[in-house]
């Protein structure tokens, strides 16, 4: 494993021009994620939380401010294989089977795939897709495709993991199940994780710290530490303390 690196955003701003109008997606966003920590970015649609992630991955360039991952500039960190990513939609290549989709980051990073055969098999087992190694995405259910995406995000043994609403397209039951699995997987890898979500319970269940965002312009309103001990079990979902915290966050979320 590449060694967990921190994520540091300093005073980042970003605007988009879409069909003639300028939209201020982010204004003066600063965020510091300790190595090995799990941070959730929580906010309504369009508050710029996905933009933070895209900027961190070098998919967009910030207008102002700097972003460092593991002490490196973000473009350098991603090209060095320090990061892993899973998007809201699985974004699997339809012509690649499960194994080959998981191996895509290795191909992009020009790493020797044969050194990862055991790793890929282990990941497939970890996300519960044993027996589907040769299946094409079209033959899988939505939940299964998302598991492939999670496995793919871990194949490079990243020090920093970005998750962009990875379970946004899944139903609540499956989502909780995947939350528990993600926690287990994350506990095993102990990478720095940044999760973008609009599910309050998901954020509270998974994260050490929740950054609540407000929109227009996108900014971080509050940082809230989550006190629950790990490992967290599914019982937590019905704990009154859990619900109190969720309600409190909902208050902040709607307060702006």
């Amino acid at each position, binding site marked *: 494993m590449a060694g967990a690196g921190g994520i540091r955003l300093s005073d980042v701003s970003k605007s*988009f*021009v*879409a*069909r003639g109008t300028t939209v201020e997606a982010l204004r003066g966003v600063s965020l510091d994620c300790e190595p090995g920590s799990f941070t959730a970015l929580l906010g309504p649609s369009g508050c710029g939380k996905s933009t933070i992630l*895209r900027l961190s*991955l*070098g*998919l967009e360039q910030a207008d102002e401010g700097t972003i460092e991952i593991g002490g490196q500039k973000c*473009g350098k960190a*991603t*090209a*060095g*294989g320090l*990061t892993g*990513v899973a*998007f809201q*939609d*699985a*974004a*699997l*290549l*339809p*012509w690649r089977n499960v194994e080959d989709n998981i191996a*895509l*980051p290795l*191909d*992009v*990073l020009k790493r020797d795939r044969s050194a990862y055969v055991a790793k890929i098999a282990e990941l497939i087992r970890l996300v519960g897709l044993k027996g589907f190694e040769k299946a*094409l*995405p*079209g*033959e*899988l*259910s*939505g*939940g*299964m*495709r998302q598991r492939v995406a999670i496995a793919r995000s871990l194949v*490079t043994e990243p020090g920093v993991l*970005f998750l962009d609403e990875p379970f946004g397209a899944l139903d609540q039951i*499956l989502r909780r199940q995947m939350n528990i699995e993600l926690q287990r997987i994350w506990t095993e890898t102990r990478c720095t994780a940044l999760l973008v979500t609009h599910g309050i319970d998901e954020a509270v269940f998974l994260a050490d710290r929740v950054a609540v965002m407000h929109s227009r312009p996108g900014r971080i309103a509050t940082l809230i530490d989550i006190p629950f001990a790990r490992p967290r079990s599914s019982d937590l979902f019905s704990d009154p303390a859990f619900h109190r915290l969720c309600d409190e966050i909902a208050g902040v979320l709607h307060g702006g």
Partner: protein
Amino acid sequence: MAAEHVLSAPKPISQAPWLVPVRNIVILLVLWEIAGRFHLVAGGALPSLSAIVERFWEDRTDYPAHVWSTLVSSTLGFVIGNIAAIAAGVLFVLSPSAARLFRGFNVALFAVPTIAIAPILALTMAGISPRVALAAIGCYFVTMTATVVGLTQIDLRSADLVRAYGGGKWSVMRFVQLRSALPVILAGLQVAAPNAVLGAILAEFGGGGRWGLGTYLLGSLGRADPPRLWGIGLVATAIAGIAYLVFGLISARVTGASKAVTMTTSLPPAGTKAGSRWTGLAVSLGSIALPLVLWWAFIRGLGVPAMIGKTPWGVIDYLFFSPASPQAQSRLLEAMGQTLPITVAGMFAGLAAAFALAVSSRMLPSFTRALMPVALFSQTMPLIATIPLFVLLLGRGWLVTLVITISVTFFPAFITLAQGMKMTPKAALDLPKAYGAGAWTELRLVGIPSAMPYLFAAARLTVPRALLGVMIAEWLATGKGLGNLLNQSRGYLDYGMIWTVAAVSVVLSVALYQIVVLVERRVLAGMGMRGSE
């Protein structure tokens, strides 16, 4: 719950799928035989099948040399043209400034009505090279456009993923774009294959030589021998049709695996105007100048005498500054007045027919299945081989021009549209269905809007083909318009007029094309889509 709606249910097979088309073909052949036997169509212009076969058998020793000659030049042209086309498509997607610089060149090469430059190539090149060149030109734009469409209409999320791992343009190209463009490129090759045959035959037509189906056809035109003309036409059709079918089969195999599982919602990035206004202007000017420079270099490079090979300046001189200019101008204007209206009418009619058929292939699959073999058969017939037949059937009036124009525009438009509709993700089509929408609503809400980029691609494809169809009809049948002017000038060895007609027909074609592009930009921008142009 999750698995059942994702695993696509196998289609119920009530009977063998090939049975209906085969039955229809048999019915058609029987009708044909009866019509021919009893001289029911145009006073015997449609000979019976048996008469054609009989004639073919009598001519059997003539065919191999002609067929071989056409095959060699069209295959060579197909290979050269498509390699250049795919390489160019990749280059244009990787480098937008190269695409802008070559835009004028591309549009000009695309808009060239092949018939207009066949005489020019025959004047300036030797051996089979005019045929190879024309076959290659016939392939280039179709395949280049298909490559660009395929490479740009990708799932942006997949590209993001590759870029998220530090992948650059080349990685995105390698891992996402090339493979996802494959079905579209193959559809391009499918259309290009009959084009190559048509190009080769056209060059044979315009350029003398001893062998080739075009030469054979030209030699047989004057003999009032319908069965032989049909025989040659059918052989040419078979060659083009086989090439078409082979790529169709490959395409069908590949498309199955590359359909997106869900529809991408990400808006394509807004075009950032790179560089200053002045560099933009310079590139635009360079793009217009490049075809002219290449034209000039072509003449100079081949060392054609100035008398025969006209440079751009030579054409301007002929048209405006020579003693014969006024007369040349009036002949040209009269010809344009005859050619333009019917070109536009034919183009719209062909496009409408293609759209109707593409739509009905969704609505009434069984109707399309029945019609498809007939449509394919009539459309893979190389244009040049079918014109004598159309003339026999429809006479030499405007009707024959219109029908020919529709028939040449319909085919590429239909392929482009059908391909576009096939690429609509299944999930997007399921959504209206889930709300109880019928086939019409589904089509209106999802099928047609998502096929819009392809409709415009089809419209762009049909422009020059319409002009080509009109000019060939004029040349061979009606004795009017630009096509006729070109043919006459050939007879009078009026080299200035030959080059002028070629240049003017390209300019006309480019102008029509530009109009389509402008409309396309407007409409697609309003829909949040991006065209392939």
